[in-house]
C-alpha cells in the first residue's frame, strides 16, 4: 500500500521535472510578462465590453445589468478560449523536443525515472503555465457575479472547456514528440490544424444537414460537431435560445441511447469529458513506448512516408539543377520538395479543388422533388389531362381555365399557362387545388396549380456563403503557411549556422532578401491559385449558363477574377515580408513564428472587423464600400458574397440596377487601389529590410 502511495507521490508531487518548472517557472520574467499581458488583455476586453454596452449603469434595471453581464461573460469566455488555443501550442509544443534540443533527453532516459514520470512531468510542467494563466483570469470572470445574470456553473464550464482544450493540445504535442512525428517546429502545423478545424467545423455546423431532426420535426440546435468543437461547446453554456441543447426525450429514439443522447443533450459536458479522456488515451502509448521509441533510429513520420512511397528513405538522390539565384532556388525547391511540405501542398490543393468542385456540382444539380411535372410529357393536350410524376398520382383533368402559376425563387407568383413554360422538369409547389369531385367522377379536376423550378442541392445564397467561407479559410491557411515559412527562413539558417556561410560569400543583402522573397512566392503560388481556381469554376459555370441561354444571376461577379489574384499575392507578400522581418530580428524560430503569426492575425482580424463595420454602417452608404475595399477579407466578401453582407450598398433590393453597377465599379476601382497601396507598403518594408539587414544581423552575431 505504501509502495503504491510512494509511486504516485513520485509520479506527480515529487516528480523532479515538474518540480523544477513549478519552482522556477513563476520566477521567470518572460512568464510574468506573458501572464500580465494575458490578464491585461482580458481586462481590456471587459472594459471595452462595458463601454460598448452604451448605457449608464446608474439608470439600468437589474434585468439590463444581467444582460450586460451575460454579454460580458460571453465575450470574455470566447477570448479566453481563443487565447488558450493560441498559447497552449506554444508552451506544449516543446514538451519533449526542448529536452532533445538541449540534449538532456538522453540523460533523462538514462536516469531511474520511469516513463510515466518523464512523460507526465514534461506534459504537466508545460501545462502548468497555461493552467496558471487560466487561474489568473478568475478575478476577471468574477466581475460578472457583481451584476448577476451568469450562473457559477456556466463560469465553471467556460474554464473546464478552456482547460480541456489546453490538455488535449498538450497531449497531442507530447504524442507527436514521443512518436517522432514532428519536431518543435510542428507548432506551426498545430496552428494550421486548429484554424482549419475550428473554422471548418464552425462553417459546416451552419448546415441543417448536420443537425439531426428531432421527434417534433424541427432540427436540433446542437449538431454532430457541437460536442467536439471548443467554440460550439462553449456557445451552449451561454443559455441563448438558438443554442440551448434539446432534451434527451426530444431526440429521435435512435439518438436517445448513451452516448449519443449525452452528446446531443449536453455537448459541453461531453466536450470536457471527451477531451480529457482523449488526452489520457494520447498520453498512455507515449508512457508505454517512450524508451522503446527513443531507441529506434527511424521516425514514425519517415516510416509512414516510406510506406506511402512518398520518400524511399534513401540517403541519396539525383541532384537537381540550381538556379542562378541560389537563395530563391533553395527557398522554392528544398522547402516545397520536403516530403511533409509536399503532402501539405497536395492535400491543400486537392481539398480546395475537390471542395470547389463539390460545391459547384451541388449548386448545378437539383433535388428530385416529391412530385413533379415534366413538360411536354406530363400534359396531354388532346385529353386535357396532367400527369404528375413522383408519387404515382393518377392523371388529373385540367380544364382550359385551370390557373397555372409559376414561381421563381425570390419572386412573386405569376400566372402562366403550361404552354408558356419551357420544356423541362418543374416541381409542384404545395398541393394543387382540386375542384369538388362530382359524384361518380373517376378523374380529379385541377382548379389551380403552382409550378416552380426544381430546388438546387445548394441554393445560390448558400453557394455564395460556402464559397466565401471556403476561400476565406484557404486564404487564411495560405497566410499562415507563408508567414511560417518566412518567419523561419532566416532563424533556421541562424540556428543551423548556414547563415554565416552565406554572409561570407559575395551575396548582398538585397540579393539575399530578394531571393528569399522570390522563393517564398514560388513556393506559395500554387497554393494561392486554389481560391482563384474555385472562383473561376463558378464564373465559367455562369458563363456556360449565359451561353446556353439560361436565365441566371452571377454567383460570383467575374471582375473578382481580375481583383482577387492581385490582392491575394500582395497580402501574401506582406505576410512574407513581415515574417522575414521578424525572422531577422528574432534569434529563435519559435519566437519569430509566434510573433509574426500574431501580427498577421492581428492585422487581418483588425482590418476585417473595421472593414465589416464600415460596410455595415448605414450612414456611409456606398462610401463604406470604398473603405471596406482596403481590408483584404472584406474585399473578398464584397466580391464573392455581397448579397450576404452589403445588400443595401449594392442595392439588390432596389428596382434600379444602376446602383449594383456603381457598387461593382467602386469595389473594382478601390480594390485595385488597395492592392496598389499594399504593394507600396510591401515595397517600403522591403527597402527598409535591405537597408537594415547588415546592422540587424551583426547585432546578433556572437
Amino acid at each position, binding site marked *: 500500500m505504501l509502495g503504491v502511495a510512494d509511486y504516485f507521490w513520485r509520479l506527480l508531487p515529487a516528480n523532479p521535472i515538474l518540480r523544477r518548472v513549478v519552482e522556477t517557472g513563476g520566477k521567470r520574467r518572460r512568464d510574468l510578462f506573458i501572464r500580465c499581458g494575458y490578464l491585461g488583455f482580458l481586462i481590456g476586453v471587459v472594459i471595452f465590453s462595458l463601454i460598448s454596452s452604451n448605457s449608464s449603469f446608474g439608470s439600468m434595471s437589474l434585468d439590463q445589468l444581467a444582460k450586460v453581464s451575460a454579454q460580458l461573460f460571453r465575450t470574455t469566455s470566447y477570448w479566453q478560449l481563443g487565447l488558450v488555443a493560441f498559447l497552449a501550442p506554444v508552451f506544449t509544443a516543446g514538451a519533449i523536443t526542448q529536452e532533445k534540443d538541449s540534449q538532456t533527453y538522453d540523460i533523462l532516459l538514462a536516469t531511474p525515472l520511469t516513463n510515466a514520470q518523464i512523460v507526465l512531468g514534461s506534459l504537466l510542467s508545460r501545462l502548468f503555465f497555461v493552467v496558471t494563466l487560466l487561474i489568473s483570469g478568475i478575478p476577471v470572470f468574477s466581475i460578472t457575479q457583481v451584476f448577476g445574470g451568469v450562473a457559477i456553473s456556466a463560469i465553471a464550464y467556460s474554464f473546464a472547456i478552456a482547460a480541456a482544450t489546453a490538455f488535449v493540445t498538450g497531449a497531442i504535442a507530447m504524442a507527436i514528440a514521443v512518436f517522432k512525428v514532428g519536431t518543435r517546429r510542428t507548432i506551426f502545423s498545430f496552428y494550421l490544424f486548429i484554424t482549419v478545424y475550428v473554422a471548418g467545423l464552425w462553417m459546416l455546423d451552419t448546415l441543417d444537414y448536420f443537425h439531426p431532426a428531432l421527434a417534433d420535426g424541427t432540427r436540433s440546435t446542437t449538431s454532430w460537431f457541437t460536442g467536439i468543437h471548443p467554440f460550439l461547446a462553449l456557445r451552449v453554456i451561454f443559455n441563448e435560445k438558438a443554442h440551448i441543447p434539446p432534451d434527451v426525450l426530444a431526440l429521435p429514439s435512435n439518438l436517445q441511447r448513451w452516448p449519443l443522447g449525452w452528446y446531443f443533450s449536453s455537448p459541453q459536458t461531453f466536450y470536457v469529458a471527451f477531451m480529457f479522456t482523449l488526452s489520457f488515451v494520447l498520453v498512455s502509448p507515449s508512457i508505454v513506448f517512450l524508451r522503446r521509441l527513443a531507441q529506434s533510429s527511424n521516425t514514425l513520420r519517415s516510416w509512414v512516408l516510406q510506406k506511402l512511397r512518398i520518400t524511399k528513405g534513401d540517403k*541519396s538522390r539525383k*541532384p537537381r*539543377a540550381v538556379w542562378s539565384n541560389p537563395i530563391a532556388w533553395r527557398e522554392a525547391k528544398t522547402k516545397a520538395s520536403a516530403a511533409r511540405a509536399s503532402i501539405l501542398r497536395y492535400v491543400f490543393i486537392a481539398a480546395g479543388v475537390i471542395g470547389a468542385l463539390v460545391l459547384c456540382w451541388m449548386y448545378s444539380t437539383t433535388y428530385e422533388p416529391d412530385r413533379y411535372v415534366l413538360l411536354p410529357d406530363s400534359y396531354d393536350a388532346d385529353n386535357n389531362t396532367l400527369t404528375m410524376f413522383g408519387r404515382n398520382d393518377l392523371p388529373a383533368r385540367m380544364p382550359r381555365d385551370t390557373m397555372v402559376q409559376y414561381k421563381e425563387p425570390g419572386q412573386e407568383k405569376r400566372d402562366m399557362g403550361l404552354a408558356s413554360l419551357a420544356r423541362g422538369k418543374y416541381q409542384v409547389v404545395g398541393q394543387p387545388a382540386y375542384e369538388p369531385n362530382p359524384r361518380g367522377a373517376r378523374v380529379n379536376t385541377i382548379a389551380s396549380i403552382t409550378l416552380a423550378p426544381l430546388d438546387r442541392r445548394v441554393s445560390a445564397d448558400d453557394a455564395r456563403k460556402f464559397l466565401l467561407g471556403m476561400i476565406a479559410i484557404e486564404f487564411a491557411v495560405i497566410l499562415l503557411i507563408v508567414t511560417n515559412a518566412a518567419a523561419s527562413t532566416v532563424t533556421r539558417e541562424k540556428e543551423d*549556422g548556414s547563415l554565416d556561410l552565406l554572409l561570407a560569400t559575395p551575396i548582398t543583402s538585397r540579393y539575399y532578401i530578394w531571393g528569399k522573397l522570390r522563393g517564398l512566392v514560388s513556393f506559395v503560388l500554387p497554393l494561392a491559385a486554389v481560391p482563384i481556381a474555385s472562383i473561376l469554376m463558378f464564373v465559367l459555370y455562369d458563363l456556360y449558363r449565359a451561353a446556353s441561354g439560361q436565365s441566371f444571376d452571377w454567383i460570383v461577379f467575374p471582375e473578382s477574377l481580375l481583383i482577387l489574384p492581385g490582392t491575394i499575392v500582395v497580402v501574401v507578400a506582406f505576410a512574407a515580408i513581415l515574417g522575414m522581418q521578424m525572422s531577422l530580428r528574432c534569434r529563435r524560430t519559435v519566437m519569430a513564428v509566434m510573433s509574426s503569426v500574431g501580427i498577421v492575425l492581428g492585422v487581418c482580424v483588425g482590418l476585417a472587423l473595421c472593414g465589416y463595420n464600415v460596410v455595415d454602417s448605414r450612414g456611409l452608404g456606398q462610401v463604406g464600400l470604398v473603405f471596406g475595399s482596403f481590408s483584404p477579407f472584406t474585399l473578398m466578401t464584397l466580391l464573392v458574397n455581397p448579397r450576404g453582407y452589403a445588400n443595401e450598398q449594392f442595392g439588390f433590393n432596389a428596382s434600379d440596377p444602376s446602383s449594383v453597377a456603381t457598387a461593382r465599379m467602386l469595389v473594382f476601382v478601390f480594390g485595385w487601389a488597395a492592392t496598389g497601396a499594399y504593394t507600396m507598403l510591401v515595397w517600403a518594408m522591403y527597402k527598409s529590410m535591405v537597408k537594415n539587414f547588415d546592422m540587424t544581423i551583426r547585432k546578433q552575431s556572437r
Partner: protein
Amino acid sequence: MSVVIKTVNLTKRYGTLVALSNLNLEINAGDCFGFIGPNGAGKSTTIKILATLLQPTWGEARVCDYVVGYQSRQIRPLIGFVPDYFGAYEDMVVQEYLEFFAAAYNINGANRNKIVNDVLELTDLGYKRDALVDGLSRGMKQRLSIARVLLHDPKVLLLDEPAGNLDPRARIEMRELLKELRRMGKTIMISSHILPELQDLCNTVGIIEQGELIYAGPWADIVKRARGGMVLHVTVADNPAAAGALLAQNPGIESVNPNNGFLEVSLKEGVTDYSFVPQQLVGAGFKLMMLREEEVNLETAFMRLTKGMVQ
C-alpha cells in the same frame, strides 16, 4: 613577401566582455598560420572578423589590403571561410550543395559544372555527389566544407577548427588535404587544438589567451623562446636518489626531480653544454643507462607560454 592578412589594434567587445584586445598580426602570402589558444581566447572572433561576419569594436583588419567593414564586398570573393560547425542544409545532396555555393559566388553555366566536378575530385568526394548532405559522416562534412571554400579559388582560407571531432583517419586525410592546398599557394589561417598537427602543417603560429596575442611568428622560434633552460632525462642503474643529490650540487643545474623512474634534470638558462652530467655520474661510480634531451614541441611551448586563463 606581401602581407595578406594584417590586423592593427584589433579589438572586439561584447558588452563588458573583451573578446579581443589590441591584436596586431601579420600573415604573409603563402603562409600557413596556426592560431592556437584556450577555449574562449578569441580565435573564432578573429576569424569571424576576417571573414567579414563581425565588425571590430575598434582597430583595423585588412585582408589583401582591403579593410574589413568598409570593403567587405571586395574581401568576400577572396576568402574561403570554414566555421567550427557545419552549416547544414536539409534535403540537399552534395552536388546541389556545391552548386548552391558556386551560384552564390556567381559561378554559373557550364563553368559551374566543371568547377564542381574538379573540386569533388580534389577532395575525393566524387563518389558522394548524390548523397544527402545530412547523412554524411562528420569527416565527410568537413571535406565538403573544404570543397565548398575551394569553389571560387580563394587566395585566403580561414579555417576554424576544421579537424575538431574527427576520427584519426579523417584527421590525417584532412591534414593531407590542407598540405595540398598549401602547396597550391593558398594562404591559410587555421585555428585548432590539435597542436602536433599544426606543427606538422604550419610554418607560423600565433598564441592567443584572453583576447591578447602572446606570440606570433615561425613555430621554430616559439619553441626556442619557450625552451628557457634545457631539460635532460637521466636514468641510472642503482640508487637514483643519490645520483640526483649529486647532480643537484652542480652549479650548472637548476633542479633535479625524480619522475617515473628517471631523473628530470633542469639546466640553468644559458647552459647548453651538458657533457659534465655523464662525466660527473660515471666519475662517481653510477652506471648511466640513459641520457637524453627533452624534446620541446609546440605542445610544451604552448603549456609554458600560456597560463590557462579563460574569460
